């Protein structure tokens, strides 16, 4: 009996979230005739995709009872790196960061694949030597390939290969300090947030100048290849520009994260670490590795969002991701993932992202100023959490009961 009660409550709670989104949708349709148009819906998807990708990584981190304050800064840093890789045809600070990160990433990937796929035979020493050898070979090959590409500049595929390892590396550093140093995620990622912005400005040069990728200084710099515009285009379905490419990236990362959480052992471990770290550790789970993994994933997703940012705004700059971590955290929290860890998931986060997106969109359509939008968003965050925790319902119930008692 007690169980059906809690079950009903959980269903109601998750339903609150979807009902909230539905209510917002209906309100939008009522308030503005443009709201329901295909173009407007596509615009919303455009706008939410970047925050959505960051929020997916943030969800994984928060599920482990952590927090990643560095996502905005990593986005800034990666946007600068991405812009410079696209424009420059020579060794710069950007290539000096991205090429080694890419090589290291390839090496680690190759070593890991060998470790997973190598059948048991051959003995420990041979196996270790093999894994190390293959890893080193992959590093050398990747470094040679990337270095050979530097004089020609990088295109879409180039940046999609070279920028994510930068995010991965910085996320891994945060994660490793949190796990091995047993430090508070808040403090470690705060430090990373500060340092990454500094690094972004240093790489950008001249105190953090903006790198517009199509209108760069023509005399000294080339511009980004036209092919890069693909990332900022819509895919045409039935003769209409229907699906923005960033939306596909958002959907893809959400899908992968959802599969990770529900279908893989690692996903279960993420929940366990957030639910009770000591229990998880005593159950034989390598909790350090799980923590390093989630911050690394968050870092990679920051880099992906950064590449899309470059494509959409046609520039890279050291303050591109300023306060973006807060939007991501807000979306995750609205989506019902507990900041205490262990509860929540990607589904809620997607809804949270869209609630945020639709709200901004409706207010824009109604011509509400951005200042006022900000104020309202703060209210919405509190309201959403109150609704989900069932606190608002309790308040209302209590008030009704009190009024009834007073009248009786």
């Amino acid at each position, binding site marked *: *009996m*007690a*169980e059906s*009660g*809690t079950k009903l409550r959980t269903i109601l709670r998750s339903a609150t979230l979807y009902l909230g989104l539905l209510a917002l949708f209906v309100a939008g349709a009522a308030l503005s005739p443009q709201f329901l148009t295909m173009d407007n819906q596509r615009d919303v998807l455009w706008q939410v995709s970047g925050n959505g990708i960051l929020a997916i990584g943030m969800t994984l981190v928060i599920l482990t009872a952590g927090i990643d304050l560095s996502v905005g800064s990593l986005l800034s840093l990666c946007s600068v790196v991405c812009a410079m890789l696209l424009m420059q045809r020579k060794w710069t600070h950007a290539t000096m960061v991205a090429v080694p990160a890419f090589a290291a990433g390839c090496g680690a990937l190759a070593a890991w694949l060998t470790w997973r796929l190598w059948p048991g035979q051959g003995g420990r020493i041979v196996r270790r030597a093999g894994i190390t050898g293959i890893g080193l070979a992959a590093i050398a090959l990747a470094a040679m390939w990337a270095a050979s590409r530097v004089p020609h500049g990088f295109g879409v595929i180039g940046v999609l290969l070279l920028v994510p390892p930068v995010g991965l590396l910085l996320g891994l550093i945060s994660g490793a300090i949190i796990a091995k140093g047993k430090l508070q995620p808040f403090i470690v990622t705060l430090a990373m947030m500060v340092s990454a912005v500094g690094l972004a400005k240093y790489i950008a040069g001249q105190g953090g100048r903006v790198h517009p990728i199509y209108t760069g200084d023509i005399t000294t710099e080339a511009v980004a290849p036209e092919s890069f515009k693909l990332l900022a285009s819509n895919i045409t379905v039935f003769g209409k520009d229907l699906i923005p490419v960033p939306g596909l990236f958002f959907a893809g990362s959400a899908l992968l994260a959802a599969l990770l959480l*529900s*279908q*893989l*052992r*690692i*996903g*279960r*471990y993420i*929940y*366990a670490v*957030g*639910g*009770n770290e*000591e*229990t*998880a*550790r*005593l*159950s*034989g*789970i*390598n909790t350090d590795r799980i923590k390093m993994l989630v911050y690394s994933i968050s870092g990679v997703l920051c880099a992906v969002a950064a590449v899309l940012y470059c494509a959409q705004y046609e520039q890279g700059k050291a303050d591109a991701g300023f306060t973006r971590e807060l939007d991501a955290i807000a979306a995750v929290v609205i989506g019902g993932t*507990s900041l205490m*860890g*262990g*509860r929540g998931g990607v589904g809620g986060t997607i809804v949270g992202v869209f609630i945020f997106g639709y709200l901004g969109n409706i207010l824009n359509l109604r011509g509400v100023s951005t200042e006022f939008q900000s104020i309202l968003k703060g209210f919405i965050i509190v309201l959403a959490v109150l609704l989900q925790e069932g606190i608002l319902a309790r308040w209302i119930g209590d008030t009704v009961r009190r009024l009834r008692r007073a009248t009786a």
Partner: protein
Amino acid sequence: MATETHNRPVIADAGPPLLRMCDVRKAFGNVEVLHGVTLDVRPGEIHALVGENGAGKSTLMKILAGVYTDWTGLMEIGGQPARFHSPRDAEDGRVAIIHQELALVPYLSVAENMFLGREPLTRWHTVDHGRMRADARKLLTQLAPSIDVSRPVAEYPVSIQQLIEIGKALSRNARILILDEPTSALSDTEAGRLFDILRELKAQGAGLIYISHKMEEIYALADRITVLRDGEYVGCRPASELDRDELIHWMVGRQIEQLFPKHVSQPGRELLRVEHLSLTPAGAGRKLVDDVSLCVRAGEVVGIGGLMGSGASELLGSIFGQYGRRPTGTLHVDGKPFVPASPLHGIDAGIAFVTNDRKATGLVLSMSVLRNMTLASLKRAAPRGRLSGGFERTLAEPLSRELSLKAPSLHAPITSLSGGNQQKVILAKWLMTQPMLLLLDEPTRGIDVGAKADIYELMNRWTAAGLGILLITSELPELLAMSDRIVVMAHGRLTAELSRKEATQERVMAAAV
């Protein structure tokens, strides 16, 4: 002790009872959990409230303490009808509850804790620290005279903190004191001191409601016993007229033939050999485990006796890999040398470790029953990392049958289960790893008699199947009854090794202090 109990004079019915609760009913939603419960407490009485987990004791006490307000029935305090709408109300009605988990603010001083929310003020409406300290000192003169009231509470052990809580209750002029399992974190000496204080309060005319699972305590302290079962009032009788067997019968509604159904089996090969194991944890100045050697053979239960802080829990943790490579000494598991570098190594070597704190280190409270059960076995059951198909159910169902687990469903949240069933989930989780050596640290702490009997029965079954068990328990009757051999630890060292025949409560205690 028994004769003393029987000679206790039963207080005559004089004047109105301090507390009377009559036909109390309470429902959560549509589910009624208290079906007309009655309780009366007289001044100068220790009244034991007894029942299995889920019997409704806590619910009743929360009503009395003003936590639950939507109930029906009658409540009188000192003959006057009373109804509390908040915990604050209950305090004003001079009811105080001392919770199992203490409710003190660790970094505030003793005095600040005692007067939290009702600090004495100066003329300028600032806190009058001088008077607060003086008042606190006065209140604690009897309870804990040696205490410095300006020190933070966190500097004192749990036993002293409990006395501070009692002092806090007295500062609010409480006449009815509810003690919920107050000795669960105390050593026997500390508990003895607490009992003296409770008897003193009783002599001063307070009414004490004492909730406990420990029979010895109930019979040592209580004047009368009220028993609840499944939200029903079973009965109330003077302790001297209700013998132990009948009390258990009242509690579980069935006769438990034998509380400790121990089968002694023939020990087999050596499963665990520990030689000169020592542990100095990071930051600790002294060794918590000091040069301990012992062995466990297949099919036997080796019991470890000792007081709180004896180092027994740390010994088990060291064997399992909880402390990584920190412990020194040598271990052999099943004849092979073993270095417990991490819990995963312990699990792979066939060791299972049931810790003494279900909530903090045993369960993931945000997960379902099923997910808690499979947590330690996923690596083995899903080596490729995919959690597809129903393999978790397939693993869990036979075990939950074997352990006669009572859960609404395997997908129910773990928090919806009673303490005894939560403990069974932990046991199932470890059995699923197919261990040969079970390290059990207080496996029956805070669970009801029925579940205890189930767990003892299971231990017999496991030893019969050839498992070895290393058991820590602070309950001496349990230790003596369930162990084939007993070792006693004090201050990290082994102080005695006794065979089943040699062991008596006195000998174990003598070695433990």
